[in-house]
């Protein structure tokens, strides 16, 4: 897993601040542990999942499109263009901010808190951050593997579905970090 700060030689330091700037499109070839404050003046593509709360709290501003396999965020993510995620966009924590000027395309969209501003594009399932409906939770349950729910694996062994609740953030992150699938059906990158 690549840490963004390990790539700081590629960025410019913004004068008088802890922010870094990357001029132009940026492509990250693997999973990204985003641990700095970064502005990408272009598109950002992460060929893996992006987690902004592993080594440190990351802040991200993308002035173009953001494309990721999965995004798990506790920090702040601002995208001027569209956000494309092949898998999940999962926000958690009271201070999490997700602001997308364009559309969000994702297989599953699980925002957190009140600080989420976006327009859903092609989204498989969206779980409302404040009051998720039973329909949303049932759809999510059909999409995700039982192991992303607290007690889901045990219930699956007993032949029962997981409880109707949001997938566990801890379990989602753990599965991403260990390369285990989140969804019952494989994503295209797993079949290509």
């Amino acid at each position, binding site marked *: 897993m690549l840490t963004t*700060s*390990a*790539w*700081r*030689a*590629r960025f410019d330091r913004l*004068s*008088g601040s802890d922010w870094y700037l990357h001029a*132009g*499109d940026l*492509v990250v*070839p*693997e999973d990204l542990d985003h641990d700095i404050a970064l502005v990408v003046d272009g598109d950002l*593509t992460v*060929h*893996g999942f992006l987690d902004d709360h592993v080594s440190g709290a990351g802040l991200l501003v993308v002035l173009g499109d953001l*494309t*990721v*396999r999965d995004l798990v965020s506790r920090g702040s993510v601002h995208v001027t263009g569209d956000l*494309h995620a*092949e898998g999940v966009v999962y926000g958690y924590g009271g201070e999490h901010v997700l602001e997308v000027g364009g559309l969000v*395309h994702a*297989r599953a969209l699980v925002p957190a808190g009140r600080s989420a501003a976006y327009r859903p594009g*092609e989204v498989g399932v969206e779980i409302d951050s404040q009051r998720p409906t039973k329909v949303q939770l049932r759809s999510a349950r059909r999409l995700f593997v039982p192991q992303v729910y607290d007690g889901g694996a045990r219930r699956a062994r007993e032949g029962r579905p997981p409880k109707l609740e949001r997938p566990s953030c801890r379990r989602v992150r753990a599965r991403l970090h260990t390369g285990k699938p989140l969804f019952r059906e494989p*994503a*295209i*990158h*797993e079949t*290509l």
Partner: protein
Amino acid sequence: MGTAALVREARRVGTTVARLRELGAGEPEVARAVAGRIGLTAALAEELAVRWAGDHAGIGVLRTLAAQPATGPEWLALFAVHPDEQVRRAVAAHRATPKPTVRALAADSAATVRRAVAARERVPRRVVPALLDDPAAEVRLAMARRPGADPTQLRVLAADPDPEVRAAAAAHRHTPGEALLTLAGDPDLLVLAALAGNRFTPEPALGALTEAACRGLAGRGLAGRTEPGSSDPGQLPRQIVDSLLENGRLPTPLLELFAATEDRGLAARAALLLKARAERAGTEHPC
């Protein structure tokens, strides 16, 4: 179907490989979306390269392919001589670029390409001297910011004519102590601020900085220093003081100097730090 709809289809998770192949052979904008896909196979990347390499309309596809992890070393070597600077820059940053190609790109006419070489996770040893002596400051700055920069390289960069490069060397954990000591006498405040925040700055250098900062608070020190790029003239001296106070390795006698300044806020802050240190020392078990 319009271009926008085709681009959406090219980016859609469920689009089949066969369909991606068709889309990649169509309009350049759509092909670019295919080229940037996560999990693209090496075979499909090669097909796209074959289709678009000689087509000027497909420059966006080539730029994307040059940064695509699935693109193979052979194609990267070919892209490295492409007239488009952004294509070469992406090749210079690509992990799979063959070493001889990286060496050639280190002498590229465009500074942005040479900078991308300097910022690589691994830089071929043979090109390091040229990059350290590169005419463009941004290339030398990238060398100074590399987490893997070694003390020999940083010693050279600590004497760089550009203050930003010296500041990056002053902030680096691998810069040798004697180079950091020399930097304590630097005429540029940016360098001093970087030095003050470095946890590996030796005590004599911290002492020199503290004394200068204390004199500065009395309106006498840090005079004649230059502050490139700083819009607030008071910002950097304050940043130096803040960095020194936040530097956990600042010796207690130097902290006492701050506690004795006429700046009441600063003196109180230093006094609190001293108290905290004393309490920590009191609770530590002798062993």
